[in-house]
């Protein structure tokens, strides 16, 4: 149980800024996802937390104590890498017991805790197996056991599910979540998959190009994105320029009513957005009714995805699977005011 604080954390490689002025606070016992496209600085941040990489500027604090001068092996921040998971020259027992051996624990105690830990990751009796005899999923679980056995201050996972097939991912996700809750270990994992982050994390830190975009609970990334870029990363490309005046927004398609207490953008130029699944393709009232042209439709099995022309912008909307519309039709749709969110105006518009 460790409280982790990153203060103005910056890392430069020659002229490239990999991580730029990152400020972030992780509560003890929390499970955090660093989310972003590859090369956004999330793994670099992880390495700075472990001490494998030193920050160019800023501070990493565990429970209020600066860790910058503390060498990796003394931090108790254990990292599980994506590749090269297990020590190939050691059997499973020696792999899992490695951290305890380094801590000078007795052989007998190590053996006991190793078998306990193998039980926890559902691989009892695997002590004498060699790494190359194990499947990818089993290796992953052994690597997790090896990290957890030392009861780390912080557990860091680099793309823990990336190399697993769909079924194993689900299983591994459950396992990580359960054990993390049970042992109450402050954990941070890196992923580029937003679904994975949403399903697993208590809070998500979304990073682009080394800059933290938004740090919030998963729900917020759907309901209250900070910017059009954040909305886009969470599969929302429905944008419409407008001007907010009090409790309505003037747009090219007329005035839209909003909930003034729900939105945070001040009066002036804004971008209106509604998530595809929140648009009513079968309107229930006259409020915020707009008429738009159907550009295309795709049957998705459980729902129908419709592409719409909203004042020159391409929008997506999800309707019932049996929705009866044709391409080229102009249909009325409703933008429920409870689901209208306002983004800051895009640069240069």
């Amino acid at each position: 149980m460790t409280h982790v604080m990153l203060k103005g954390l910056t890392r430069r490689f020659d002229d490239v800024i990999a991580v730029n002025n990152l400020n972030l606070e992780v509560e003890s016992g929390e499970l955090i996802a660093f989310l972003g496209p590859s090369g956004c600085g999330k793994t670099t941040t992880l390495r700075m937390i472990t001490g494998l990489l030193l920050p160019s500027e800023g501070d990493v604090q565990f429970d209020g104590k600066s860790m910058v001068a503390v060498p990796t092996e003394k931090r108790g921040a254990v990292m599980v890498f994506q590749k090269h998971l297990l020590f190939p020259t050691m059997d499973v027992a020696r792999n899992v017991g490695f951290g305890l051996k380094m801590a000078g624990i007795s052989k007998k105690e190590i053996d006991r805790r190793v078998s306990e830990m193998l039980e926890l990751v559902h691989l009892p009796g695997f002590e004498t197996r060699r790494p190359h005899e194990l499947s990818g999923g089993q290796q992953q679980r052994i690597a997790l056991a090896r990290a957890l056995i030392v009861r780390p201050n912080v557990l860091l996972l680099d793309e823990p599910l990336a190399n697993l097939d769909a079924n194993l991912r689900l299983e591994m996700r459950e396992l990580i979540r359960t054990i993390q809750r049970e042992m109450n270990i402050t954990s941070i994992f890196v992923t580029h998959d937003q679904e994975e982050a949403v399903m697993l994390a208590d809070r998500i830190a979304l990073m682009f190009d080394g800059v933290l975009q938004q740090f919030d609970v998963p729900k917020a990334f759907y309901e209250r994105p900070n910017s059009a870029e954040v909305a886009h990363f969470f599969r929302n490309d429905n944008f419409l320029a407008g001007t907010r005046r009090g409790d309505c927004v003037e747009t090219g398609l007329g005035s839209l009513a909003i909930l003034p207490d729900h939105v945070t953008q001040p009066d002036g130029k804004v971008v209106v957005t509604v998530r595809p699944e929140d648009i009513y393709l079968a309107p229930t009232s006259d409020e915020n009714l707009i008429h738009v042209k159907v550009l295309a439709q795709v049957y998705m099995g459980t729902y129908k995805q419709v592409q719409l022309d909203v004042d020159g912008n391409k929008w997506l909307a999800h309707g019932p699977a049996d929705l009866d519309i044709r391409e080229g039709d102009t249909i009325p749709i409703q933008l429920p005011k409870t689901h209208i969110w306002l983004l800051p105006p895009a640069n240069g518009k």
Partner: protein
Amino acid sequence: MQRMFRWIAIIAIVLGVALPVIPQIIWSLAHRWLFPSLLPTEWSMSSWEYVFSPSSRVVEGFMNSLEIAVFVCILSILVGLPAARAIALNDFKGKGIIEWLLMVPIIVPGIVSTLGIHQLFIRLHLTNTFIGVSLVHLIPCIPYMVLVMVSVFSNYGTELEDTARTLGAGPIRVFLNVTLPGILPGLMVATMFTFLISWGQYITTVLIGGGTIVTLPVVLFPFITGINYSNAAAISLVFVAPAILVLIFTSRQLGQDSAVMGGFGRL
């Protein structure tokens, strides 16, 4: 098809390695072997008695060669291992030049560089010494050590070491517990190469050793140009024995598509 290549390879090895040794064995046991006899007409152990007698200096040369080769192996591990690791895992200014410099001894004939070094070694009082000969052997050995280990290290990566660090192992324990066991097969092959290169050095030993440091090639050389084929054959067999042992010992490593041989793609 693959079976056929396998057989071709085996036959080539037998023809190339084993066959030349057979006449040597016969020669070493021959007392009288004149044209057109297919086999010697008289046999004797006198050559072997000579080899093991102090006057031939073969045993002395063997021990000197062995000591120097082992010492050169230790030196080239001390120098080559850190260099290989730095080249394999880091990017730094002038890396290309350093890589090239490390390969230069393969390109430049040993006699050329040794002549230059000779002057320097005289001034440093390193000529006619064990250390001096070992140092000059190091020059042709380093490239092979570095070449093999660069490919071993780049294949090995740093993730396992990093993992060990985060699990509480300091740099020394990481090296002993994780890195060393991981690179050991490659290191063994590289050391064998080093051993054999030092073992086979003649010109450099003569120039720097100046006749004071007598190694096995130095003992052997006059016999090759001499007329006593039997003695030359017996000494040659003593000389080639370690090479054949090493070949048998490392064949398992060399046979696989292992990282060990990857480095030679760079040549």
